[in-house]
């Protein structure tokens, strides 16, 4: 399968009063279409920094990032913004939804931004939300939805415009265990079905069981990569036991 996302020895250094923090240190990974990757690691290991760089929101200090073969460093700001809304889908830990738009409108927003808002798009948005169990909630405002429901709306929004890469930052942080499993499982299924490259940052190691690959970071570096289904299950089960 084709490679959707590739980093070449990418680094992020923060300068502060007590010297330089190597938040991300020479990380090289590639992720294929239809592959769902879990990004784990202790606090401060550089997960969010890496995600922000993949999202074109943060410029690397060194190295290169290619999405669909395009080098992010070659783009100006306007082009990067356009690239982000066309090629990348997002779910955030909080503040996922525009508070004054309904669930359906929040998903459609992504189509409007891309100038692809039409009857077919509206229909797909409905179907996707229904698929995520929100068929009854299409016209609810965010404040009328639970945290899990909001995460599912965000997942629909992250997928509706057929992006190449879907980035999810701690999608289960505010959910109870049962909801968390549901959300991540549906997410993984959609990534596979729609052939996107999915990356999920998570603290909850049990959620890694739905991933095709686990990337573990420590001190900004790749500590370990787990890709056999057997080992993944073992990794997730150990977490469950703890």
């Amino acid at each position: 399968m084709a490679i959707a996302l590739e980093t070449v020895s990418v680094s992020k250094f923060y300068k502060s009063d007590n010297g330089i923090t190597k938040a991300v240190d020479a990380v090289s990974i590639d992720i294929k279409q239809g592959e769902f990757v879990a990004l784990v690691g202790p606090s401060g290991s550089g997960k969010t920094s890496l995600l922000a760089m993949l999202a074109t929101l943060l410029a690397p200090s060194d190295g290169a990032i290619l999405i669909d073969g395009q080098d992010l460093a070659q783009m100006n700001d306007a082009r990067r913004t356009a690239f982000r809304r066309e090629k990348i889908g997002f779910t955030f830990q909080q503040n996922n939804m525009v508070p004054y738009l309904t669930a359906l409108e929040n998903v459609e927003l992504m189509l409007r931004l891309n100038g692809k808002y039409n009857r077919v798009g509206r229909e797909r948005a409905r179907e996707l939300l229904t698929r995520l169990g929100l068929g009854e909630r299409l016209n609810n405002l965010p404040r009328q939805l639970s945290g899990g429901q909001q995460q599912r709306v965000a997942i629909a929004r992250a997928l509706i415009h057929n992006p190449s890469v879907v980035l999810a930052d701690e999608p289960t942080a505010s959910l109870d265990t049962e909801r968390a499993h549901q959300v991540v499982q549906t997410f993984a299924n959609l990534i596979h079905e729609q052939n996107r490259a999915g990356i999920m940052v998570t603290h909850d190691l049990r959620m890694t069981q739905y991933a095709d690959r686990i990337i573990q970071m420590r001190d900004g570096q790749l500590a370990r990569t787990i890709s056999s289904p057997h080992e993944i299950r073992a990794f997730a089960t150990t977490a469950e036991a703890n």
Partner: protein
Amino acid sequence: MGIYLALKEIWRNRGRFFLFSLVIALITVLVLFIAALADGLGNGNKEYIEKLNGDLIVYKANVDLSIPTSRVDRGKRTETLRVPGVKDVGQASFSSVVLLHGENKKLNVALIGVEPGKPGEPPVVQGRGLTEKRGKEAIIDRNVALRTNLHVGDDLTIKSIQGTQEEFFVLRIVGVSDGRQYSLQPSVIVPHLTFDLIKPGTPATGNETDLISNVLIVQLQDPANWKNMAVAVEEQVNDVRAVDRKTAYENTPGYSAQQSTLNTQNFFSLLIGILVIGGFFQIQMLQKVPQIGMLKAIGAPNGTIGIAALTQIIIVTVVGVAIGTALTLLLSLTFPATVPIVFSPNAILLGIGSLLLVGPIGGLVSIRYALRVEPLTALGLAS
């Protein structure tokens, strides 16, 4: 896209936005009323002079265009009339007296002495003009008619202090003119020789050849040529100063001070408007930082965010100003005619125009703030 977001947000928070429009409406009412008051009071000062059927006002030289101080005699009148291009000249004088009407009711009025049929005498809307040089007759202006119950054909009594004596004069009302206030008082217009008998102070000789007035009202053959004619009059008549009506009323006592006071008030009302609108949108913007960061992260361009913010400000301001204008006009209908409030289209348009600008100016800070929100905040990272 920006407009779509702006409209959705307003609609889903219509209560809050409407309340804020109401605040702007109240500021609008304030600004428009102060403007109307400025016009009304200004009008009270300048009305007689502004509406004069003459193009130049001639004063004695070196009196700083003060009408009460100025004295112009019959000789100057004759000389002025001889200046080529002058069509007609009338002598006019001003004083303040008490008008008695009804049972023991008093009204302070401006007593204006004019030559019957000459520039200075206002046209009547009822009855007839002054005819006799020494007639015991008077024209009252609309404001006197509104505040008393006097009509054409009635007699009016004027009380005047001469020396230390109170003197009473009875005059027949022969005509009513439109509003001709002078010095913030409604006016009674009488023949100049009659004026000389009534006016407070020592009565004059009573001969027309000795007639001394405050100013001359000069009608020109070509009113557009007033600038050159003013120079010509000053050159050919000794010891006089000639100006147009506007200069004349701008130099009446208190006019400029009053107008600048009211203009200052209006300026501060607008300033308060800018601060209130700015404050509201800024507070709202601070609460919206996370959602704006998120919108930028998913790829909303800065232009979209800016247009959304600007659209909201414009809508809220326009709605507020519209409500405020309607409210002002409704309120103004409930005011009695004696309140010095005049809504001139120009002043209203100027007020509305500046109020509409106030919104975007007040909102600039919050728009700038919105444009600066970093999309990184969506991931909980600050740059």
